[in-house]
């Protein structure tokens, strides 16, 4: 049972890490940036490409790509969403446009890197994991867990302790008020897109260590992210992390008690339950 909890925490941690960026973007611009998952997977493909063709190690490749993709993330805002918002596109219009972009991006990934599975690895051979008093943790899981904790702590420190962090939080809490007190909201939104995309690429590269890369993973990922953000409370950054964690744990217990083919059903059932009985999520504010 503890083993299942551990598996759940590791998977959930990574869902949480990626959901944090998604929640951050939502809190700043108030719409769902659906290509987020596909962009993260595209970034992970770039990590694979860099590692494969330059000999750089995994961490260096992932960090370089995260920075580059962060800049790319800003372009989404500048050339796609900002013009749409200036045209006063409705919320449903934004969702449809965003969904369209997700499909385009997923196909672009397939076109660039092909449909076959690519594998990212830290070691050349597959090695058995470590045993601690009956609990098994694989080498990849250990790396993922450590990286998730480090990134999450750094990110929390950034949000709480730095000027930019405060500005991002302020814009997230009240966009108009932030503008009135002189926070350059446009720049803050750009920074949000940069940060969120960079984190998502790191997260997706870590996931790829476990499950390899396929263009369709982007879509699967965004579904999990949306569920995690609903559980945590839409727009709540800490909520998104905990929502991801909760989802990962629940999915793994679902597999244990109901069987592997119920994994997705459990995830969507949780979504429905939250939407019906706790629509504001665990950390969201009731509107």
């Amino acid at each position, binding site marked *: 049972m503890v083993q299942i909890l551990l598996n759940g925490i590791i998977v959930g941690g990574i869902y949480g890490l990626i959901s944090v960026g998604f929640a951050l973007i939502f809190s700043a611009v108030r719409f769902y940036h659906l290509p987020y998952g596909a962009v993260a997977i595209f970034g992970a493909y770039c990590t694979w490409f860099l590692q494969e063709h330059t000999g750089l190690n995994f961490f260096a490749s992932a960090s370089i790509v995260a920075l580059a993709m962060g800049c790319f993330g800003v372009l989404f805002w500048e050339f796609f969403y900002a013009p749409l918002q200036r045209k006063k596109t409705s919320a449903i219009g934004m969702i449809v446009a965003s969904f369209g972009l997700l499909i385009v991006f997923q196909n672009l990934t397939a076109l660039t890197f092909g449909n076959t599975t690519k594998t990212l690895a830290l070691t050349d051979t597959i090695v058995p994991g470590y045993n601690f008093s009956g609990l*098994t943790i694989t080498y990849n899981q250990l790396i993922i867990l450590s990286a998730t904790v480090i990134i999450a702590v750094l990110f929390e420190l950034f949000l709480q302790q730095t000027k930019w962090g405060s500005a991002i939080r302020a814009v997230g809490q009240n966009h108009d008020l932030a503008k009135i007190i002189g926070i350059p909201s446009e720049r803050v939104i750009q920074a949000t897109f940069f940060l969120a995309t960079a984190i998502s690429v790191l997260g997706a590269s870590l996931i790829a260590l476990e499950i390899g890369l396929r263009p369709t993973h982007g879509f699967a990922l965004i579904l999990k992210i949306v569920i995690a953000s609903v559980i945590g409370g839409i727009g709540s950054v800490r909520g998104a992390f905990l929502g991801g964690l909760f989802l990962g744990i629940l999915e793994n217990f679902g597999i244990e008690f109901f069987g592997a083919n119920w994994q997705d059903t459990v995830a969507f059932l949780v979504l429905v339950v939250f939407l019906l009985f706790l629509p504001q999520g665990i950390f969201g504010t009731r509107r």
Partner: protein
Amino acid sequence: MKKILTLLCSLVLFAACNMQKTPDSSGNTNTSEALKIGYIGPLTGDTASLGNADKNAVEMYFAKHPLLLGRPVEVVYEDAHCNGEASASAAEKLITQDKVQVIFGGTCSGETLAAAPATEKNKVILFSSVSTSPEITTAGDYLFRNVPSDEKATDVLVAELSTKYTKIAIISQNNDFAQAYRQKLKEKFLKAGGEVVLDEAFNTGTTDFKTVLQKVKNSGAETLINFAGESAPAGIINRQATELGLSLPIYGNDVMMGAEFFEIAKNAAEGSIIVATAAESGAENDPLIQEYVTRYGEEPPSLAYVFLSYDRAAIIAQAISKVGYDGTKIKDWLYEMQPYEGVAGTTVFDHNGDSSILPKLLIAKNGKFEIVK
């Protein structure tokens, strides 16, 4: 006036369309007109490596034998990416637009089963060299295959398993192919006195198997049956099993012959045992594979499927040259044909269109499957 004009225009358009549709009613066959044969398989997507090997073998045969009945052969390739719906549409298109009498395919059993209703209705031959689902046996009169059914494969697998183990755990993918295979294996293993201590299915797209594998670990199984329906999840299961320190012997199916299995599982692939068609790589087979490598720059993911697909093209070419390009006549000829000695072995068809070729036990060694001696 406007209405009359519109009506006239519509009539003219209708007539024009109809004229285009009418074939040359003279019945004369233009000898320079291409003889079109259809092909359905996954040319992109998860099972593309198998589909392309299957297609390449057809291509190689007709590159060597470009004429049939004095006409140049043109194979029309349709990509169904292992999807039933896409396959059914491709079959409709090949039959109605390209007017083919023979379709090679599909690769995935789901493709073959979905295309069969259209080929049956239109009396067109559907001939697969890769689909192994037992359901195909009874899916139609015009449906043939030279790859052995999973029915035969499970006989071989159960004979092996029941002599070595009493408790098995099965992990299978929720798709036509894997579920049909799993069902047969389970029935026969139970009949042979064995016990299935864990039987878990997973949905397509699942990538994290650690908790399921943990259940396998706790189940007391002596061996793990990895029945994924695609190469990639098969590879992930092997890989995560090794990572978790699960040291059970792993048995699988022919999706493990896909290149992605070895790419993902790496050293965790070693020792896996499958049941599949395999030609002993004797001298007479080597030139074909050499030719394949020169032509396509890589070794096929499975030698057997290349041999089977090549034989299929040769059998159909022989049938067409004997009885002409007509689905029903070809069907009758195939049921009655003399044993065909090809690169994959000796082929004759039974009354269900299944062939006489038998599968063998293969083991993964150094990134390849070889026959268990």
